[in-house]
């Protein structure tokens, strides 16, 4: 273990003394959720229509929440930045969705899915939430099939499954390589049914720019119409934030170009705690960046590791073409290092192994930042047709982008930023520390600890939206008497002034650096210093560099056009300003956490075999940061007390 000395002065981190409470209900793990449901207060059906609920986001979390709340009779207003709810970033999920159905009779159960998820997350998630997730997973599949989601079937007409990383059972349901698309279209169709019933009012091309907090409770939002630039205000009895993840803070990621942190960050600035922001997942199998103009990275689904084998030449000097390298000269390093899980190790483990062999000089091509994902032996074993049935669209996508066919040559892949486990802090009810602000899906931090297992984000988004929020939101409304609020309240006026002023000041800078250049600059710092491997020194450097980028942004931004019509550059600039601030908090969070866990790999803390070394005594907590204007953030801690599972060193060997 090597300890790198910090070259920069120690950062002082102010910690709040009172511990945060996640409010997990008492009792046995498997009883908690049913007990909660039977004891919670209900909103009488006739009263539901008196409540206005704002849902921000129309991905799996927002789509399913909107539909379900509307079905229950609430008046729902749903907002999204895209021109239609069906284009939310969830659409791009490829591989599948987990559920403990045990249809394969291979020993799966709610308990096993729970354990896999907790362990996969390297013991940094809240037990009660994860158990509930595993519990409702089975209902999700029933729900989606009933909607008409065309999941893969076998010849007998039953549903079929595939395996994903970090599990030894087959519990992943899929619709070719387009599972997210089909699940989202299911949620979207349920939503549109409620739109036609006028239970949902739809607001497309609208970007939430502020949360309105009145008397300490979330009571509305301020949005910008992206086509006209108009600033609008909306009141509600509760706000359900489902705005997705912030992986684009790294500029290059597998996230859609519109995925952003703004909605969550603005809530953070209004008092919502941001939890574990440094937990960002790097997906091992993405198409490597090809050059400086690269605008995003494309994922090659984890499902490919069911049949694809990852390798590099044994010798760093071996520059032969893949087909000329005989078996003996190949290093199938995942199978070698992790014989029990082989190519199906969890993502963080796989990504680091790939980085390691590339650091050793064995990486492929001009950049040396790629390894092979080879289907040769699977095609020999199962035939090309079988492989094409399973992965055809992914192979086509690979060929479209790279110009090479994976049927003929192994794919080349490299890790990329893919998902964030961090997000706004929520309690068991999925409610933030601001009463009335609920946060679902990738936008919250709740279920995946320090590392998410494949096919579990879709599960979580839909669990939150279909099966959790209808209960917990009702409980909140029934327990709180909420005065009527008006959109003429001072809080709205102040917020609107602020939002307008901000856009004006962005347009007034008239400097020379474009949004794209500044975003690339931020991304490079994030990847190099807050990326796959971090050190105290690298993080201290990031904490110096990011404020410099912030200064440059606010003094040298080159932004053209106006605020009164469609202006993509303005949208991007406004989002980048938030990414920069968030990036700094991520570095601070990673700096504070002097251990390695899951995707958070501090080089100083590793086992002799290069695996993350946790420090449960000091860091078995959720870090939840409070925003303090013009000063350092304050750290709140939620202790993670494992009552039902023993925290052990993960072992995938």
């Amino acid at each position, binding site marked *: 273990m090597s300890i790198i000395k910090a070259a920069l002065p120690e950062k002082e981190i102010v910690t709040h003394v009172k511990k945060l409470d996640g409010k997990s209900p008492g009792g046995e793990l498997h009883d908690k959720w049913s007990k909660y449901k039977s004891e919670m207060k209900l909103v009488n059906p006739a009263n539901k229509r008196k409540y206005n609920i704002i849902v921000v986001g129309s991905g799996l979390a927002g789509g399913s929440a909107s539909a379900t709340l509307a079905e229950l009779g609430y008046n729902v207003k749903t907002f999204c930045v895209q021109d239609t709810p069906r284009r939310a*970033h969830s*659409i*791009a999920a490829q591989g599948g969705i987990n559920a403990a159905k045990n249809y394969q009779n291979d020993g799966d159960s709610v308990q096993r899915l729970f354990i896999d998820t907790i362990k996969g997350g390297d013991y940094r998630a809240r037990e009660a939430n994860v158990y509930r997730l595993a519990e409702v997973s089975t209902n999700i599949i029933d729900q989606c099939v009933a909607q008409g989601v065309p999941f893969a079937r076998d010849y007998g007409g039953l549903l079929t499954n595939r395996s994903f990383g970090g599990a030894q059972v087959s519990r992943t349901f899929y619709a070719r390589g387009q599972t997210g698309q089909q699940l989202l279209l299911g949620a979207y169709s349920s939503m549109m049914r409620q739109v036609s019933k006028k239970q949902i009012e739809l607001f497309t091309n609208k970007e939430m720019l502020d949360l309105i907090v009145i008397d300490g409770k979330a009571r509305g939002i301020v949005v910008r119409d992206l086509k006209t630039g108009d600033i609008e205000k909306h009141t509600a009895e509760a706000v359900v934030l489902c705005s997705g993840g912030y992986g684009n803070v790294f500029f290059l990621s597998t996230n859609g170009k519109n995925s952003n942190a703004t909605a969550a960050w603005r809530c953070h600035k209004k008092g919502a705690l941001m939890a574990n922001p440094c937990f960002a997942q790097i997906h091992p199998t993405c198409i490597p960046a090809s050059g400086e*103009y690269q605008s995003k990275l494309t994922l090659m689904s984890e499902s490919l590791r069911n049949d694809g084998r990852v390798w590099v030449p044994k010798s760093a000097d071996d520059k032969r073409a893949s087909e000329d390298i005989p078996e003996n000269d190949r290093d199938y390093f995942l199978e070698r290092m992790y014989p029990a899980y082989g190519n199906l190790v969890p993502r963080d483990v796989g990504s680091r192994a790939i980085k390691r062999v590339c650091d050793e000089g064995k990486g492929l091509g001009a950049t040396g930042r790629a390894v092979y994902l080879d289907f040769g032996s699977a095609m020999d074993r199962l035939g090309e047709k079988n492989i094409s049935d399973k992965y055809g669209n992914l192979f086509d996508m690979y060929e479209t982008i790279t*110009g090479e066919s994976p049927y003929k040559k192994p794919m080349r892949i490299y890790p990329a930023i893919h998902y964030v486990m961090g997000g706004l802090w929520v309690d068991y009810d999925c409610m933030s520390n601001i009463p009335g602000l609920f946060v679902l899906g990738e936008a919250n931090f709740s279920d995946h600890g320090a590392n998410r297992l494949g096919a579990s984000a879709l599960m979580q988004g839909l669990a939150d939206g279909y099966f959790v929020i209808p209960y917990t939101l009702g409980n909140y409304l029934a327990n709180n008497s909420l005065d009527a609020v008006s959109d003429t309240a001072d809080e709205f006026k102040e917020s609107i002034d602020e939002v307008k002023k901000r856009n004006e000041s962005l347009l007034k800078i008239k400097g020379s650096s474009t949004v794209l250049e500044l975003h690339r600059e931020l991304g490079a710092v994030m990847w190099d210093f807050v990326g796959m491997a971090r050190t105290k020194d690298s993080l201290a450097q990031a904490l110096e560099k990011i404020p410099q980028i912030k200064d440059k942004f606010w003094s040298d931004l080159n932004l053209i056009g106006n605020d009164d019509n469609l202006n993509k550059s303005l949208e991007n600039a406004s989002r980048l300003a938030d990414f920069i601030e968030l990036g700094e908090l991520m570095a601070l969070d990673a700096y504070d956490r002097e251990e390695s866990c899951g995707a958070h790999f501090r080089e100083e803390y590793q086992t002799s075999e290069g695996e993350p070394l946790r420090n449960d005594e000091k860091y078995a907590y959720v870090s939840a940061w409070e925003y303090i204007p013009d000063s350092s953030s304050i750290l709140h801690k939620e202790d993670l007390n494992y009552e039902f599972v023993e925290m052990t060193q993960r072992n995938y060997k």
Partner: protein
Amino acid sequence: MANTINLKLQVWRQESADSSGDFHYYSMEDVPVDISFLEMLDILNENLTKSGIVPISFDSDCREGICGTCGFVINGIAHGPQSRTTVCQLHMRHFNDGDTLVIEPFRATPFKIVKDLVVDRGSFDKIIQAGGYVSINTGNGPDANSILIGKEDAEEAFDSAACIGCGACVASCPNASAALFTSAKISHLLQLPQGQIEQKARVKSMVDKMDEEGFGACSNHAECEAVCPKGISIKNIANMRRSLIKSIVK
């Protein structure tokens, strides 16, 4: 093989729905062939911004061919010359040095131009709203394996359900018909037991909505199928017609 190419671009610029637009001419030098078409436009927009010119508005999100956000016409073809490929997945290696590329928005009466290459496809949502769903509330689903669906039926339903709602079919149709889009959803549900129950009402309501939104009638040009990036087949339109007739007859 040359690694970069030079291009002449002729791009439709239009400030808003109500203003009139026209073509602007730009030349692009040393475009790397391994970048995507949208990355090429990103470079152009960077150059425009640096010269103080408002960048070209075009829409994209996933840049993986799945969200249906991107889409415009290149040299008369929706999504450009590469078949089965959205414009975000189109790479510059398919163009030649010296090519002139005419880039314009999807043109169809029901798709109003918002700005430059961005159009409003909100009418697609209205068509889905008219019946593109199974009427089931959350929590009511029976065990998923209690509904048996043969592999082939599931695959066919999937083929129809793969539509990304990009609107290329409408833009390429001489009548601006939305038949391919609408029929894809109708056939998806028609091919599954879950979708059978409401089929009659669905097909009627969705087809009526299509007309109401100002889309033209389908007269079998099949241009839609040719440009569809997801390979949605015009068999779906036949399915829709059959289903429509049945719904009227009985």
